[in-house]
């Protein structure tokens, strides 16, 4: 498969680009909801429009009303989301939760997927338990209780947790905290008794919850996949999310880069356009080069996931790490090259820097993935 978009994918890219730059723009969405102090951090109306565009269920199989598309297609939408800083539940609901539910029973799919496809439901992912992503260690416990389970523990960095109709929770049903085996994923409804959420606004204006489970009783049919055999489902969900976050990061970096090069062509100092200065030209050219490489890597990781390739795991981490580094460089150079005005809230460039911070941290920062690349490579 060639490493560029085919005709259908290019059409999707054009559609997503047009839609997101109009309906999902910074002015209409991010700033609008932020300035209103919105508790969700995104617009439900836009989520409904995502459904009309076919985005919400694009990775859901056709039997359940979706389009049965792959990671490359999801990445195309995510790049546009990143470019416009569009707040939405797409990555967590349509990519990650959809991936997890794909391993669930027909009942579970029937219960949750239609709402997702219609843009009425929002799902959240509860995996992290500390401030740094470390999914190997899962301490939240689910113990057998009657016909079901009793969930105890705490999760953090649960994006849009308080807005979600259902949380995908990774819990330990057997073994020690760091074991591979003994993980089970649960679909926990928002109104579950003894689940408490403490939603907090993050630097990028998104909302994330600290969630505590103080003996939450769950039916056996809340289990996604096999009891104790959830590690594989979890890994697949995390990889889908990481590849998606990489694609979104390419968009964030690209958006910051385009604004910056435009600014270099407008701003005058010392009687010259600042883009005439070689000191800035070389930094912009270097950034271009890095951005091209990051984009290629994100597409490659998505393709490998779609092909279920042997080394997809490795390439996903390469992509998350590479995009992470490049997007970080893009937003830093962006603010610096904008000069004083880059520090103002009025200019959008700072919003890219904030979004990059949060997105980079999500599902493992570049240090996490560099370590994972080394481990997967045997050193």
């Amino acid at each position, binding site marked *: 498969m060639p490493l560029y978009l085919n005709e259908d994918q290019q059409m999707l890219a054009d559609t997503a680009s047009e839609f997101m730059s109009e309906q999902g723009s910074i002015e209409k969405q991010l700033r609008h909801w932020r300035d209103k102090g919105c508790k969700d951090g995104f617009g439900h109306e836009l989520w409904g429009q995502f459904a009309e565009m076919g985005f919400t269920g694009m990775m859901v199989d056709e039997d359940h009303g979706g389009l049965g598309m792959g990671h490359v297609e999801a990445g195309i939408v995510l790049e546009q989301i990143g470019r416009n800083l569009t707040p939405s539940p797409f990555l967590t609901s349509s990519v990650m939760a959809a991936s997890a539910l794909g391993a669930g029973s027909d009942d579970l799919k029937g219960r949750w997927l239609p709402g997702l496809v219609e843009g009425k439901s929002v799902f959240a992912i509860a995996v992290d338990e500390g401030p740094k992503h470390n999914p190997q260690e899962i301490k939240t416990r689910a113990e057998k209780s009657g016909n079901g389970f009793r969930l105890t523990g705490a999760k953090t960095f649960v994006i849009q947790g308080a807005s979600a109709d259902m949380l995908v929770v990774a819990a330990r049903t057997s073994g020690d905290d760091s074991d591979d085996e003994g993980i089970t994923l649960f679909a926990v409804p928002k109104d579950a008794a003894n689940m408490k959420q403490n939603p907090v606004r993050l630097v990028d204006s998104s909302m994330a919850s600290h969630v505590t489970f103080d003996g939450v009783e769950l039916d056996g049919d809340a289990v996604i996949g096999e009891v104790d055999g959830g590690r594989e489902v979890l890994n697949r969900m995390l990889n889908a999310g990481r590849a998606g976050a990489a694609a979104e990061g390419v968009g964030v970096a690209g958006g910051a880069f385009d604004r910056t090069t435009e600014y270099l062509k407008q701003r005058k100092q010392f009687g010259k356009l600042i883009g005439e200065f070689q000191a800035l030209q070389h930094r912009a050219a270097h950034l271009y080069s890095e951005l091209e490489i990051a984009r290629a890597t994100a597409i490659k990781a998505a393709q490998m996931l779609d092909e279920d390739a042997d080394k997809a795991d490795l390439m996903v981490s390469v992509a998350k790490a590479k995009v992470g580094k490049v997007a970080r460089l893009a937003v830093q150079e962006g603010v610096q090259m904008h000069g004083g005005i880059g520090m103002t809230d009025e200019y959008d460039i700072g919003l890219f820097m904030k979004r990059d911070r949060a997105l980079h941290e999500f599902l493992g920062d570049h240090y996490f993935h*560099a370590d994972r690349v080394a481990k997967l490579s045997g050193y």
Partner: protein
Amino acid sequence: MAEDLDAFRAETREWLEANCPEEMRQPVRDERDVYWGGRNAEFKNDAQKAWFEACRDRGYTVPDWPKEYGGAGLTPPQAKVLRQEMARINARPPLSSFGIWMLGPALLHFGTEGQKQRFLNEIARGEIRWCQGYSEPGSGSDLVSMQTFGEDKGDHWVVNGQKIWTSYADEADWIFCLVRTDKNDKYRGITFMLFDMASDGVSTKPIKLISGNSPFCETFMDDVKVPKSYGEDIPGYVGEINRGWDVAKYLLGHEREMISGAGNKERSGSLGPKLARNGIDNPVLRAALAEYDIDALAYGCMGEKFLDELKVGKAHPAQPNMMKYAGTELNKQRHELMMSAGGSRALEWESEETNGGTPARSWLRTKANSIEGGTSEVMLNVIAKRILDLPGA
């Protein structure tokens, strides 16, 4: 289409299995492991000869060139399958040459039918080894200021001047050479000439480099007679007289693509797994390797994307500059890390264990990567101007 490709893959795999000797599936250890062809070429061993001849006879020295010029006429997807299958068994390239990487593409684009018939076939069959006469002592990054002059004598030119950094000039049979034919027009006063290195008045002198090796030469031209024609429809120059700069620039794109190492598995692969065989005790070195591996594997993706896009005309025409910049900076870093991981053993200059100082000499050789064919700084200038359209660039 996909089924055709699957069939082609199966057929290719079978052919490689039958024709690529085991010895040709080993990493290149020294200069003689690379076969360059030419009038004076010698094979290192029978395996090298057998592998070259099998590929030559099937058009696989230049798989994507048309059959009438010595290639196999493969489509871009087929050529990619062949690349992948060769990489899978670590097959060495059967023939390396500047004819394949540089002159060939320029002739395919600018050459006459007669030039293609003659020169491309010679290149594909490994009969003529070419070298490139571009840089001059006073014209490095500012290449277009070159002064080597060809005086028009009707049916030929008389060329005088000096070229420098001519790779393997002392082993080459022919040269493609930039010669000034109009002193009044900087850009439209250069002709892209082709001539035999055995011509009277051509002499070469190897330049000893910091690596101790001499892959580059000075090339002197002292009243060299260059014919304007080598026969019917075979001009002694490519493109038009005085318009050689267009050819030179086009060829530079291919040269930069070659130096970038795009699609080179050795260069875009990870380093950690190789260096970690004996264990890495130092966590800071481990971290540096992990960072490098991310960059290398990411660059491998970029190489694949670039080549895929190039074959179907989707790549930005100035993209080889970006590839060269990224690829060469990465390769320098690769060898820095290999030296660090190798410790004092890697410092050995003449020992048997290092095959005559290969690690250190290779490390030093890579420092030229970001200079030859256009410096990194020139690459960044070109990106700023032609891709980013920055003002005054």
